[in-house]
């Protein structure tokens, strides 16, 4: 679905100095996969995300979306429709003043028939559970609701893949939960490929696979269990592991017999009960 081969990208700042934000990135994501990308601020995650939507084009290397090279102009709109993108700030990606009008924005740009747009908008709003708010004004919604509207706006374009760049960074815990549940649902029920960029380790636990970025490089890759069992390495990168994993790690240090890859509270409960 997504294939990045030896991708490099540099920004030039005002003084004309170049700064490589991506260095030789190789990432491959299969159809229907749920992939999380972690890394602290400035590690190049957003820069990479923008490559998946042809908002940025690689300086070196190639990005293929569903086999289409992002540098080929003729694929541009096809790529943007196939790989939809949700940004961090819900306020700055909602265009219209009515929820359903905003969801219609994408399909309208695709030049679809009015009745088809109507159908897609209703379906998308039902999927993210915002149908009853379709006539509302976005600025009166909560952060989590706005972000779900933004997701619906992408869904209405029928993408096969959605890239979410820290969609929960500006939300409160309940808003975060709403959005993550929506994302998981899209992945499981609609079989949409998900690329979730996040700061929250508890969100990454839901992924099939995790990439960790550091200074423009991919430094680690693996399933959540593989990644988070390396607590010390993760900490060295300045990242956290899920709280439960950290607790398990501390208990292991105290000599308690637990597996290293406990990720959720439920798993922890099972393991602790087994000790008895």
């Amino acid at each position, binding site marked *: 679905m997504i294939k990045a081969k030896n991708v490099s990208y540099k920004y030039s700042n005002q003084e004309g100095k170049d700064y490589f934000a991506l260095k030789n990135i190789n990432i491959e994501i299969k159809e229907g996969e749920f992939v999380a990308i972690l890394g602290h601020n400035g590690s190049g995650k957003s820069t990479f995300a923008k490559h998946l939507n042809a908002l940025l084009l690689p300086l070196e290397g190639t990005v293929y979306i569903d086999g289409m090279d992002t540098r080929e102009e003729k694929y541009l709109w096809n790529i943007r429709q196939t790989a939809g993108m949700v940004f961090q700030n819900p306020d700055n*990606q909602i265009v219209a003043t009515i929820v359903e009008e905003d969801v219609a924005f994408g399909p309208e*740009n695709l030049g679809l028939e009015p009745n088809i747009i109507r159908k897609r908008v209703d379906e998308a709003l039902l999927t993210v559970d915002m149908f009853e708010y379709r006539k509302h004004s976005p600025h009166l919604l909560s952060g989590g609701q706005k972000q779900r509207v933004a997701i619906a706006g992408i869904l209405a*374009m029928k993408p096969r893949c959605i890239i979410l760049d820290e969609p929960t960074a500006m939300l409160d815990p309940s808003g975060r939960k709403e959005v993550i549940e929506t994302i998981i649902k899209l992945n499981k029920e609609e079989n949409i490929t998900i690329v979730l960029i996040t700061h929250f380790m508890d969100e990454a636990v839901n992924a099939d696979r995790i990439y960790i970025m550091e200074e423009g490089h991919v430094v680690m890759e693996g399933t959540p269990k593989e990644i988070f069992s390396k607590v010390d390495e993760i900490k060295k990168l300045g990242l956290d592991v899920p709280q439960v994993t950290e607790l398990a790690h501390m208990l292991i240090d105290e000599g308690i017999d637990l597996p290293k890859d406990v990720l959720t509270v439920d798993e922890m409960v099972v393991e602790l009960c087994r000790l008895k």
Partner: protein
Amino acid sequence: MLKDITIGQYIPGDTPIHNLDPRIKIIITFAFIAALFFINKFFGYLFVVAFMIMAVGLSKIPVRYIFKGLKPLLVIILLTVALNIFMTEGEVIYTIWKLRITKEGLIQAAFMALRLIFLITGASLLTLTTSPISLTDGIEKLLNPLRSIGVPAHELAMMMTIALRFIPTLLEETDKIMKAQMARGADFETGNIISRARAMVPLLVPLFISAFRRADELALAMEARCYRGGENRTRMKQLSIEFRDYMALIITIVFFLAILWSRYFVK
């Protein structure tokens, strides 16, 4: 305090006024405003009052919302009234210091104030009952014939949509910044005009920076959603002229004729 601005604030509803075609509503509003300038005696305002009562009544918009629209423009209304009272020549009925109040001035002031009040309330009724999107749709469609002479109809409509979309967001942000600065001792409320204006500068700087950042991000988000200008773009909601639109037009024409009658034929 910033919450009082109702211009561009839409109150959703399912009334005959809400459901009128936006093009028709815009045309009617312009006809209404034009009619206001034809009125030359108080009698003419009777028709205006009747027209407004009918429109507001049908729209089911609470009257206080209609009047809220006047608040930010109160200064202009008062200024007009004052200018008219003091500057009109005629029979002097009272003198304060060097200013003379004349009978004609009072009448003229009341007349102008009414005109302004109806103008503003009429325009507010349009924005209160028309979602900004259909309003801009209407403007776009009305301007479309002018494309050939270089009027960027779609771009103008898009700009207005975005401006309307971000007004509440930016107002909220202004409120937030003001509160944050007031908490640190900034004073927006006392002092003369100059010191108050100076207090606004530290408010505007962060506001502008944030507005530019928002614009940047929004442009990116729009591009990501395949936006490429007005060409080949379709709309979910098609505009269509219905029976009620013809009815509204006929009523407006009758209203306009009544105003003309009051101007030219009523002594």
